[in-house]
């Protein structure tokens, strides 16, 4: 459990974070989302102490992190940076195993661990281990970045806009990978993004931050259903133009609760994925969190969007 208590971060000429309180539960995939400059990265870096708050405390599992040995606590926190940030002077294998090397693991054990994780992220260790970072594609490099973060089996993995520089296809693949890894490892993931779609797709819970202040915390569904203020609504709608999630369909009151044999879909799936199913079977029913939606609901929902505009 990570707890931020009344965090304020002051820079010379501005206030990056203001009296922020937040708790991230162990094992959840938590997303910090907000426009650029909102303070979300500043907050993330307080967890591994790349940044210290001007005021307030950060606790991990109830212990103030200032009381922990900084080097040891960092070795227990994985970190995935923007643009992968692999060290250009080292091979892929050396990069991935850097924390293990610093902790004195011998070469064979390191290679075994890295190979295992490379398979997990969909890379062939025989091909990739001895490449240099410059020989990798952006997607491959970021997969190695993830391997590097997971190598020492940390309790917490921090990801700072890790996919913002990738093309849409790689981005989608890596988002799926993060979901898969989180499910398999059960580690706490804290993920920073400015992309609402990405947040909706991967978050167990998310916190929306704007101008250094916490706007709303909750599950995707809760936030879709009940945006707490104008900013959240607006931020969400801006994104909404491109993607309509089943969660927002439920939020508008569609769907009835009854028991019937229907395909289960998630609140974070889009209405386009739903439309795909209906294209194949016009009578198709789907089940979203127990609410049954019909093809008619889709038409009415689309019509209701038109009314708003």
């Amino acid at each position, binding site marked *: 459990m990570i707890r931020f208590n009344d965090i304020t971060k002051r820079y010379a000429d501005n206030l990056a974070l203001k009296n922020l309180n937040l708790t991230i539960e162990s094992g959840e995939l938590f997303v910090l989302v907000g426009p650029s400059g909102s303070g979300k990265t500043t907050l993330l870096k307080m967890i591994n102490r790349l940044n210290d708050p001007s005021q307030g405390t950060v606790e991990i599992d109830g212990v103030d992190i200032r009381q922990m040995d900084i080097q040891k606590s*960092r070795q227990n926190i994985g970190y995935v940076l923007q643009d992968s940030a692999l*060290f250009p*002077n080292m091979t892929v294998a050396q990069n991935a195993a850097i924390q293990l090397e610093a902790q004195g693991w011998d070469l064979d054990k390191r290679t075994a661990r890295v190979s295992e994780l490379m398979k997990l992220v969909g890379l062939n260790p025989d091909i990739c281990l001895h490449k240099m970072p410059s020989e990798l594609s952006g997607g491959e490099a970021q997969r190695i970045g993830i391997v590097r973060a997971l190598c020492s089996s940390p309790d917490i993995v921090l990801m700072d806009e890790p996919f913002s520089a990738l093309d849409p296809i790689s981005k989608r693949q890596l988002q799926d990978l993060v979901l898969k890894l989180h499910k398999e490892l059960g580690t706490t993931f804290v993920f920073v993004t400015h992309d609402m779609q990405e947040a909706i797709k991967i978050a167990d819970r998310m916190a929306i931050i704007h101008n250094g202040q916490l706007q709303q915390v909750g599950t995707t569904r809760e936030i879709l259903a009940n945006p707490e203020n104008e900013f959240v609504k607006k931020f969400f709608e801006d994104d909404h133009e491109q993607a309509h999630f089943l969660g927002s369909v439920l939020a508008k009151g569609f769907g009835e609760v009854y028991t019937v044999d229907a395909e289960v879909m998630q609140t974070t799936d889009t209405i386009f994925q739903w439309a795909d199913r209906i294209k194949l079977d016009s009578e198709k029913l789907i089940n979203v969190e127990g609410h049954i939606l019909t093809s008619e609901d889709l038409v009415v929902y689309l019509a209701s969007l038109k009314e708003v505009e």
Partner: protein
Amino acid sequence: MINYLNENSNEIISALWQHIQTSLLAMMITMLIAIPLAIILMDHPGIGKGVLQVAGMIQTIPSLAILGILIPFVGIGKVPAIIALVMYAIMPVFQNTYSGFQEIDPLLNEAADAFGLSRRFKLFKIQLPLAMPMIISGIRIAAVMIIGTATLAALIGGGGLGTYIILGIQTNDNNALLTGALLSAALALIASFLIDLLSKVSIKKLLLGLATLMILVGGFTSYQVWRENDKETITIAGKMGSEPEILINMYKDLINQEDPDIKVELKNNFGGTTFLFRALQKGNIDIYPEFTGTVLESLISGNSTVNHDKEAAYRDAKKDLGIEYKMTYLKPMSYQNGYGLAVTKETAQRYGLKNIADLIKHPQFRAAFDADFLKQSDGYAGLNQKYHFNFADVKVMEPSLRYEAVNNGHVDVTNSYTTDAQIKKYGLVVLKDADSFFPPYQGAPLMKTSFATKYPKIVKSLNKLANKISTKDMQEMNYEVTVKHKSAAVVAREYLIKHGLLKDN
């Protein structure tokens, strides 16, 4: 040129080795200072910039000036040369190392911190390898600069290839000049090439290799120092030119004939009068040949009237040196190397010049003098006071260049010494000193009285030269060395043997 190399191969190889040794030592000290300093300061950009500025400022000071400033503090020889070289080379190595660190992507530094890597791990595995290309290029710049600048070490008795360059300029010997210049250029190229090779080696091997090299060079140097200390060493220096070199070679032969166990170190072309005298006072050198006239004019303070009788002049010089500086001035040789003013035969005929006073009528003459002559009261300064020549154009020129300038007609009149080989070579006319303006200039060994008391045998050996060597003999020997390019050691030995001062063995 090839002949020259063959004849002098031993000396050249030892100069080359000296040069390499000086350069390597300077390079290592530079790296030991500059690289750790850059590492310490990489997280303190304020101080880092300050150091860069100071290092840059040091580099704008001419190297000769640095050498001059250092002499009173650390004396002469290799030590000040190495200090000066290090001061020069710190700038490029520090700057490149520092910038190499500054230019590392901050994201990579952040990553290294975030993974909880220790400072040492981060430095050796990430920062140093990433900055390495810049560091290597800094080292390469410094190495080339050091090898080039190390030629100046010869000026303060540091030896090396510069000896040949200075010798070449002094004696107008292109073979010596080219040997020194080409070898140091070749050395710089080879060093640059080797350093390029080094940049492809891993940092671990690099550090290991560096440590090995340091132990080897350090060990060898201290072995040399130890070996030299083991034997009694006395140092004899001479001013610029062939004559002092011939004389000190005679001193060496005579001393070793009496006591072969004394190690005599010769410092040729060691510098001007003031420099040598100060070196003698400080104990950096033990003996050097000095002229009676120079002692009375430049070294003794106060009363500047010089007795124009040569014996009286020697007695005055000997007495005053003893009183003022506690120095012992041994008996002089026969020849006089007095000042004179020289013109070409054509000029003399055309203007009907015989005596120095005849020059009064020709203020349009262009004159070239050496620095000593120009400012001394027994030189041009005094002459001008007496005769009011007021030559239109007075230049300072090195002795060997001066004669050539007169011969080519670039200047009309120059100062000469009565024993100079070039008078014979170019057939110049030395104008008569009818008014006995110039004081007598007889050469004799000068040393501290404490030294003379400690080494009576040496005094005895050197006194064998008293009243020997006529002006003609000296002119002949100078001619052999400067024009015929015979080695001064050989010429000196031949004279001693011929005149029964040294047993032929």
